[in-house]
């Protein structure tokens, strides 16, 4: 059994897959790649004890560096250290995306806004409103998963393909499916959360019930009760009493969605189908003031809210507006026919009337 330690192994990274991966984000001068570390060889550097290699290295350096103590208190200046990157993958259907294959696309098409380091500090970012997503936080707006959880690969893939309306994020339908999948994998390299956490579980969306004037009326009652109008306004014009004060998680001003803008093709930030609207308010738009309502709206009630929200898109030709037009444009008062709810839990008193 060989009990000796060869110090050359400490410096030789050629066989280390992680070291190879560290070379990957090669953005100009700011990144120091491991190529700069040449393999070193110590003649006869063998020891007869199994002391940890880092300790041996420290002893050797201390012995041959007499000025080291004088520099101990000095800060470690120099270029920003390289990112410790682990290659990431994405899985969208039968497509597997590889972060290693997305570097050139990211540099050419994404880094200008999202930054070389994914920290939303690209050269264009200062001019953008709303600001680009900061991938280092791993907080994403458009998810099928609950608030606070990581989105699925499909969520990110769809965001790239769809773009984000009312922002500077365009539709990237010029990319192939494989390119998009590779980019999904690539943006995962910027946050360690992707290495320690799994994506959240997508919420279950029941089949959409029929659109009726009653479902629209119930949706209106929910819009009122849940106080969506505080931000989105009584007519969905994004002008509620709290609208002017809203800021995102980085304290940048942000506007609530104006449902009335656009024509027949008006889109929401996270999609244009009824299922997309359902997901938006149930999972919330993380990083923005829009909270998750998953804990407070029952699944079928949520569909009623979707139907009402569609009627706020006054220029859209859809089944909801047809139903409303058939009712002469008047939403009747909602009559709650369900039994009275159970008493509130003991540790959360029903709302009182004041002090």
């Amino acid at each position, binding site marked *: 059994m060989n009990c000796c330690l060869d110090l050359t192994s400490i410096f030789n990274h050629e066989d280390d897959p992680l070291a190879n991966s560290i070379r990957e984000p090669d953005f100009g001068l700011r990144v120091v790649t491991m190529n700069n570390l040449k393999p070193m060889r110590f003649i006869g550097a063998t020891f007869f004890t199994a002391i940890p290699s880092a300790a041996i290295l420290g002893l050797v350096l201390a012995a041959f560096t007499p000025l080291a103590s004088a520099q101990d208190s000095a800060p470690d200046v120099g270029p920003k250290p390289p990112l410790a990157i682990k290659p990431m993958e994405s899985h969208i259907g039968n497509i597997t995306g590889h972060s290693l294959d997305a570097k050139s696309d990211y540099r050419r098409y994404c880094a200008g806004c999202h930054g070389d380091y994914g920290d939303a500090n690209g050269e264009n970012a200062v001019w953008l409103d709303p600001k680009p997503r900061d991938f280092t*936080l791993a*907080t994403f707006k458009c998810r099928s998963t609950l*608030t*606070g*959880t990581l989105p699925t690969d499909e969520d990110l893939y769809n965001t790239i393909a769809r773009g984000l309306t009312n922002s500077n994020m365009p539709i990237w339908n010029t990319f192939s499916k494989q390119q998009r999948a590779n980019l999904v994998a690539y943006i995962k390299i910027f946050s360690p*959360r992707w290495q320690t956490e799994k994506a959240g579980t997508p919420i279950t969306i029941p089949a959409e019930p029929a659109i009726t004037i009653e479902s629209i009326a119930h949706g209106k009652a929910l819009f009122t*009760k*849940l*106080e969506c109008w*505080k*931000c989105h306004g009584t007519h969905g014009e994004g002008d509620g*009493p*709290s609208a002017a*004060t*809203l*800021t995102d*998680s980085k304290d940048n001003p942000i506007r609530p969605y104006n449902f009335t803008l656009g024509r027949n093709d008006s889109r929401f930030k996270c999609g244009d189908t009824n299922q997309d609207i359902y997901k938006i308010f149930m999972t*919330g738009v*993380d*990083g*923005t*003031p*829009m*909270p*998750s*309502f998953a*804990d*407070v709206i029952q699944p079928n009630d949520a569909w009623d809210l979707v139907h009402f929200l569609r009627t706020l898109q006054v220029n859209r030709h859809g089944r909801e507006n047809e139903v409303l037009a058939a009712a002469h444009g008047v939403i009747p008062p909602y009559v709650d026919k369900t039994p009275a709810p159970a008493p*509130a*839990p003991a*540790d*959360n*008193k*029903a*709302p*009182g*009337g*004041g*002090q």
Partner: protein
Amino acid sequence: MRTKLIVLASFTLLLCSSLMFAGTISGKVTYTGTPAHQKPIDMSKEPSCAKQHTTPITTETVVTGANNALENVVVYVSSGAPDDGQVPSQAITYTQKGCQYIPHVLPMHVNQEFSILNDDQTSHNIHPLPKVNIEWNKSQPPGTPPIKEKYDKPEFIPVKCNIHPWMHGWFVVLKTSHYDLSKGAGDFKLPDLPPGKYTLTAWHEDYGTQTADVTITGNETKEVNFTFKAKAY
């Protein structure tokens, strides 16, 4: 066998001594200078909250008491008492009442579950803004069940309600169970500290942190006071 007995006896002796000689650190937090004037809060846009307050409400960035007492300062053992990983079992709550957070600062242990209650007649969205822990944002209409959450990393986390922009508070997540929040007289108390050398840290949301070293030698109460310099703006 004899060795086992000796080890057992030593362990028992150590345990007993640590229980018998549990010291306490107590003291007061005060300020010098003139604190910034706290801005009045206009709750007229939320009448259900406004009517709960008979006296004018101001921001709570700096809350003071008599004799220059400073409230809402978290005093905790930042070193010397290794975290044993024991999460305190007592229930802690963060209540939204009168469109204010009660308490304004909620200290807690890492992984300790806490409940968020809405005692108002209006909807709130509870939106903590952590940098280290995971960010989430949940709506809580009146009468809905408590939101139960916990954080797994130590951090000072600002909390806000986007619907009511004047609502600001803090979650203070600590890796120790030895902490207290200064009260109206600026007083705090950290009991059950076994003999040892400790570093106390006092944190205030606007005035920053201060530290003090304390040695507990037995069943005694040591007094440690912190004085922050008030910011005029």
